[in-house]
């Protein structure tokens, strides 16, 4: 019972890891993809609506991924084909995702803020034999839904794709020096397009997890800026998938703590729920401090002439 907090940390980190892996791929391809939340909310809604209407978790998961990838394709068309600024395109996608799901929530499911139903099946919890009985490890590794395992296994898969395969090399070069890639005949836009679609794929998993596994309900704007928190983790880890995942897990731990502490200490839960966000801000402060210190240590600085 005492190790419940570990179990919830693992679960809380799961959507962050999905979103962060999606963000790592676009980050490495040289795109600051702020639209992760937009992809996720659409996926979360599609997942719960499909599950409610079909009763099938598999179809719901596929539906979530298809919806998220389609939105990512729209984002890619805006940003890559039509050369729209990625910030503006990303903001538009987030607004679109949040508003469209709120509209459909009312229109299709007839609810205003929150939707849930007994007809929605649950993802079965997997008890890993042997490990389940071991105190700490059991809480960490056993008793999760299939999506949790997929999330954690996706981290080495992303790392392998980025650092071992031809596609990964090309993607990273596109991110660092697009003109170098173009000069040897690599289709820069195609690779960026692919990266954005993969970002959508991961956000599809993240969204489905949020509405069908983490909880079984859909609420407006239920992603709660997880996409931005994932981006913070990516920046903190400079795009390395393993370190990004680690930061996501630490964040999950902080959140789990913020849920548990009020019960233990009796402090105001509203205050303690700030913990994860404080952790995010601190992480970003460290990133900023790290980069300015690299300059200031040597006393070299420049006026901002821009």
């Amino acid at each position, binding site marked *: 019972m005492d190790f419940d907090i570990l179990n919830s940390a693992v679960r809380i980190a799961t959507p962050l890891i999905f979103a962060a892996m999606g963000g790592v791929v676009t980050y490495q391809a040289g795109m600051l993809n702020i639209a992760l939340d937009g992809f996720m909310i659409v996926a979360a809604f599609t997942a719960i609506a499909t599950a409610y209407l079909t009763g099938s978790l598999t179809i719901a998961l596929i539906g979530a991924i298809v919806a998220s990838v389609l939105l990512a394709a729209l984002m890619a068309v805006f940003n890559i084909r039509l050369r729209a600024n990625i910030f503006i395109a990303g903001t538009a996608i987030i607004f679109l995702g949040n508003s469209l799901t709120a509209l459909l929530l009312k229109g299709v499911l007839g609810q205003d803020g929150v939707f849930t139903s007994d007809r929605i099946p649950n993802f079965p919890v997997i008890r890993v034999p042997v490990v389940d009985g071991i105190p700490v490890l059991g809480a960490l590794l056993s008793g999760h839904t299939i999506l949790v395992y997929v999330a954690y296994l996706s981290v080495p898969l992303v790392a392998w794709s980025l650092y*071992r*395969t*031809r*596609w990964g*090399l*090309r993607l*990273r*070069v596109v991110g*660092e*020096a697009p*003109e*170098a*890639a*173009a*000069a*040897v*005949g*690599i289709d820069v836009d195609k690779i960026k397009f692919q990266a954005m679609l993969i970002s959508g794929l991961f956000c599809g998993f993240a969204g489905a997890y949020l509405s069908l596994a983490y909880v079984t309900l859909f609420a407006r704007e239920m992603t709660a800026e997880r996409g931005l928190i994932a981006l913070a983790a990516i920046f903190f880890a400079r795009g390395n998938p393993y370190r990004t995942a680690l930061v996501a897990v630490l964040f999950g731990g902080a959140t789990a703590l913020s849920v548990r502490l009020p019960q233990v200490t009796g402090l105001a839960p509203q205050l303690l729920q700030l913990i994860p966000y404080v952790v995010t801000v601190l992480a970003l402060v460290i990133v900023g401090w790290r980069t300015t210190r*690299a*300059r200031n*240590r*040597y*006393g*070299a*600085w*420049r*006026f901002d*002439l821009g």
Partner: protein
Amino acid sequence: MQEAVLPHKGLPPVVRMRDIVKMFGSFVAVRSAAIEIGRGEIHALVGENGAGKSTLMNILYGLLERTSGAIEVFGQDVHFSNPRQAIGYGIGMVHQHFKLAPSFTVAENIILGSEPLTTYQRIDRVRAERETRELSQRFGLNLDPRAIVGTLPVGLRQRVEILKALYRQAEILILDEPTAVLTPQETRELFATMRSLAEGGHSIIFITHKLREVIEVSDRISIMRHGEVVDTIDNDNVTAQQIAGHMVGRSVLLRVEKSVARPTTEVLLKVDGLTALGDRGERAVDDLSLEVRAGEIVGLAGVQGNGQDELVECIAGLRRPVEGNVAICGTGLGPKPSDNRDAGLAYIPADRGGVGLSLESSIWENMTIGHLPQFSRFGVFAIGKARDRAKQLIACFDVRGGEVEKPAKSLSGGNQQKVQLARELTRPAARLIIAEQPSQGVDIGAIESIHRTLVEMRDAGRGVFVVSADLDEIMSISDRVLVMYRGRIVANLLAAETDTEEVGRYMGGLDGEPFGPSAGDTGKGLADGA
């Protein structure tokens, strides 16, 4: 040497471009250009900036598509719409600005786009490194396949680019301004490489505007002017003046005509024990001292990246030194860049678009900024007066195509440079002129007038400090030449008593230990000041 001069004779050309036209909107960049490249020849393509050299070669390499005309490569009609197709026909291009990924290894950069694979689309690193090593040994271009490209000196990065093309079995190599960033010694090594490649049957197209090098290395020379190839000549008893004449269509002075400098004892710029750090924290300027006096032009030579940028930024007040002093006309550095300007600094930065001008703003606005108090009436800006003055300056500095209301970006590089000069040199307080890469991206006609202006400034008793990566420019305009190497001044020479060869040796750091200013006895200013 005689039989090596025209090895292509009797063989069909490997490239034949005819009636090539390239339009950008209504602007004709290339009009009816024709060129033939023989097998195993080094073919120089010369012309002023904007003559269409790079455009023509970008068409051959598939980076640009021609508007009309015909191209044959190895006897086949081709129409490339991307470099990949050109690479497939054995064409390789080394761009002026290297197209490399700095945080990746040499091997990764070389195989990029044609990666050797093992199972599951994985990159075969072992094979990539082995092939890189073999290739570099075969062509005598030694490189460590595992070295990170960003840590290599420029000369080696260029080798990576050349090997990249050779790895793709290029038989026709286009080198776009390959010597712009090299020391004379690195240039010589490059020329040796070019010759051995040509002897091995590769054809090399060498785009440049450095005429001395054209004569030194090429077999044939094609000269472009206003988008046309006006002549192709064998490199046989040709002089640089003849080629230059073809390039601009009139004979030009390559050396600046100027009288002997008469520097006074007044020190306008005194840099004393200056140490400054670069953006990555390295000691870019290392305990450096120098002086510029009224009435002299001091040229700072050096391969780019030896601390020149940081030095100039310190003087301009754009970078804070960690140690040492800078005095402009006897006044120390102030906390704001404008303090240095008030003390007498006129600054012509190399980065015209970023530091020197606001390209989106109009010409009159660019000419007025920094002169605002003069146009202030009871705190209200007298726009009409500022415009009138800009009109006068446009005429006075011969800014071609200059209309006061047009944005600065509508001007050519040379004319943008003139706008900068007009603004900076007309400031009454300006006595020390720092001109950074004054002729970069400027056509020959404008270079002449810019140099003449700088000499006039000198003769009017101002001090001129020219920083340039172009050794020819340094040698032709300076009265005294300083050479910067790894953050220090390693030579202080009178221009009349030295030559490019000697300066080049110092630029490459070959003469070992840097010496302090007191050792530079040939310099009038430095020795006394130390």
